[in-house]
């Protein structure tokens, strides 16, 4: 082994060098007292571009945008105390959607830990339940092990967020570094148990009314093509969770679109009739299943997941297969018989004809569905779509023609308003050749509005489509439907002038309300380079339908 000359480096310099070695080229964060040594070292890096967020949560979601668009771990930085607490929501969001994130926080010097020092908070303790793993680093040498390990943990198996809390004196501690550790990469996942795959194949072959149920794990595993191949060979009607949208192109003849609370009637009704459910990288989330006892009540279940703790968690699987879903699908494919399943596909087609997804107003760009379709008409599949959380998110999930894995970045598990715009900035930084469209609402946009200035500063190619119904629309809808129309705290009395707000932040903006030809205005806005806010009013009474009432079975949908 060639002898390496040793270098004398501070903990902060070691962190930056390790990030460079990991291939990190863009990260987001906000400096503060306890992380200044790392920022000082970062200032000397010729490789890393630091994006200055205006709120740590925004920085966290920018890193998430990078990670969701690329599938690689991304990094965010924050100082101690409020810097760290502001980051927590973005970390929890990454945990629930299994996004590989490495969060690095500054901490007060070791000697002051536990003394209620200025900007001291127990970041380690706070982050335990919302991270896959976390570290409080005790000396600079340990960074050589901890940083690559954090990347390895974030990327391995079921991905997730890892937090590294580094006291300021550890950042300043100077040590000799002789040899650099290997970069942290995802560990290989053990191959699936062959007998279980064989049993699953036999069940698929024998089933008369099977449905393939794809979750976000299919996207994480890069297994979309394998999933589509399985569906095609075995003639499996296929449903997708919110997180899996794009895994199978929406127009595919076997696609039944999204299942669950805001899925189409025919989708949920087909699930109600299936005799075999093949769950792939999906975790039977309550928004997907509705009342669990009423979910696929006649079906046997094959459950494939990389995380063994997901098997039998909500529904007991007749066959549970732990493994990388891509690898399992590759093994399953040759064991599955080619079938046509004419009777079942005909039954599904008749359900679809009788209970289709209704998209009223699809041809009118001044309605929610029409606006979404008009945006889609201006773009190709290379565009990336992010959303915030609420009615607009569900409308886009229902109506946008998603055809590519990682085309769709949305906060599924945690459902965090304020996710969309900073995530779009991250996605645009990671893949600057793409147009990134963020659909948002007038409630969500205000939760991280400050990142408009970051978008302007970075000149990212992000188009924010603001669907303004002057309300917290999904709350308004639930109060209308389930709380006797007692509308409370969901209608906004004051309304910012969003066009002027955007322009004030340095982001050009247009108002579709005043455009004589909204389609032409959209086309011009979406074909320009750089950030842009596109404001469009929609009616407050518009609802997301159909809707499964919370706690009800999926077949008991309202509307649509």
């Amino acid at each position, binding site marked *: 082994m060639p002898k390496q000359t040793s270098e004398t480096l501070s903990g902060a310099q070691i962190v930056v060098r390790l990030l460079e070695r990991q291939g990190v080229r863009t990260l987001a964060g906000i400096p503060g007292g306890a992380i200044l040594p790392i920022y000082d070292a970062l200032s000397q890096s010729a490789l890393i571009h630091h994006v200055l967020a205006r709120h740590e949560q925004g920085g966290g979601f920018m890193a998430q945008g990078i990670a969701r668009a690329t599938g690689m771990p991304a990094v965010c930085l924050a100082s101690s105390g409020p810097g760290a607490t502001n980051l927590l929501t973005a970390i929890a969001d990454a945990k629930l959607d299994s996004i590989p994130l490495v969060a690095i926080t500054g901490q007060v010097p070791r000697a002051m830990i536990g003394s209620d020092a200025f900007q001291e908070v127990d970041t380690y*303790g706070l982050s*335990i*339940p919302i991270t896959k793993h976390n570290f409080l680093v005790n000396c600079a040498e340990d960074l050589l092990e901890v940083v690559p390990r954090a990347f390895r943990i974030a990327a391995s198996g079921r991905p997730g967020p890892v937090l590294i809390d580094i006291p300021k004196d550890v950042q300043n501690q100077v040590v000799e570094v002789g040899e650099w550790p290997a970069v942290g990469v995802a560990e290989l996942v053990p191959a699936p148990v062959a007998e279980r795959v064989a049993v699953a194949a036999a069940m698929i072959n024998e089933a008369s009314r099977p449905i393939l149920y794809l979750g976000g794990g299919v996207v994480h595993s890069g297994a979309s093509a394998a999933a589509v191949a399985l569906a095609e060979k075995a003639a499996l009607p296929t449903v997708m969770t919110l997180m899996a949208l794009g895994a199978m192109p929406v127009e595919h003849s076997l696609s039944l679109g999204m299942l669950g609370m805001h899925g189409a009637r025919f989708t949920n009704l087909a699930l109600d009739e299936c005799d075999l459910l093949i769950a792939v990288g999906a975790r039977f989330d309550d928004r997907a299943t509705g009342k669990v006892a009423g979910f696929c009540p006649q079906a046997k279940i094959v459950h494939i997941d990389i995380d*063994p*703790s997901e098997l*039998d968690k909500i529904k007991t699987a007749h066959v549970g297969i732990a493994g990388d879903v891509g690898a399992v699908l590759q093994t399953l494919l040759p064991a599955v018989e080619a079938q046509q399943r004419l009777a079942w596909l005909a039954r599904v087609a008749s359900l679809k004809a009788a209970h289709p997804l209704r998209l009223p107003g699809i041809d009118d760009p001044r309605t929610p569905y029409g606006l979404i379709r008009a945006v889609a008409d201006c773009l190709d599949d290379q565009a990336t779509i992010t959303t915030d959380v609420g009615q607009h998110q569900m409308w886009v999930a229902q109506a946008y023609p998603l055809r590519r894995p990682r085309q769709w970045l949305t906060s599924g598990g945690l459902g965090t308003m304020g996710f969309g715009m900073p995530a779009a900035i991250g996605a645009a930084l990671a893949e600057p050749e793409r147009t990134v469209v963020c659909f948002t609402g007038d409630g969500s946009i205000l939760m991280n509005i400050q990142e408009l200035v970051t978008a302007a500063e970075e000149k990212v190619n992000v188009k924010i489509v603001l669907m303004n119904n002057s309300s917290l629309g999904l709350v308004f809808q639930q109060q209308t439907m389930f709380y006797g129309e007692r509308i409370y705290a969901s209608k906004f009395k004051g309304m910012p002038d969003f066009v002027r707000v955007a322009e004030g932040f340095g982001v050009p903006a247009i108002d579709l309300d005043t455009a004589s030809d909204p389609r032409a205005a959209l086309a011009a806005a979406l074909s320009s380079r750089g950030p842009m806010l596109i404001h469009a009013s929609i009616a407050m009474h518009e609802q997301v339908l159909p809707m499964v009432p919370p706690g009800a079975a999926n077949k008991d949908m309202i509307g649509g």
Partner: protein
Amino acid sequence: MNTISRMENQAVARTVLELDVYNHPGVMSHVVGLFSRRAYNVEGILVMPVGSGATSRIWLLVNEDQRLEQMVKQVEKLEDVLGVRRHGAEHEVFIRLEEFFR
């Protein structure tokens, strides 16, 4: 603990979990946090380092519950947990300790 509640508790089926873990600050928090977030009471806890002290063994006494399978899987996922073994309530580790709790 009074006699009646002790008798009631003994009527509940118990399980003893044996965990091999790395021995450093925070590991205990990771383990017990999985129980506390699910409002799953841990009836007994015993921890000591093993051998050189690089690892520790944690003994947990918990009530049998339909959530136990999921609990064990969650514990197994922790980075600092090297292995989990399940024993019946007849395991003597906590029985032998009872004299310190009279």
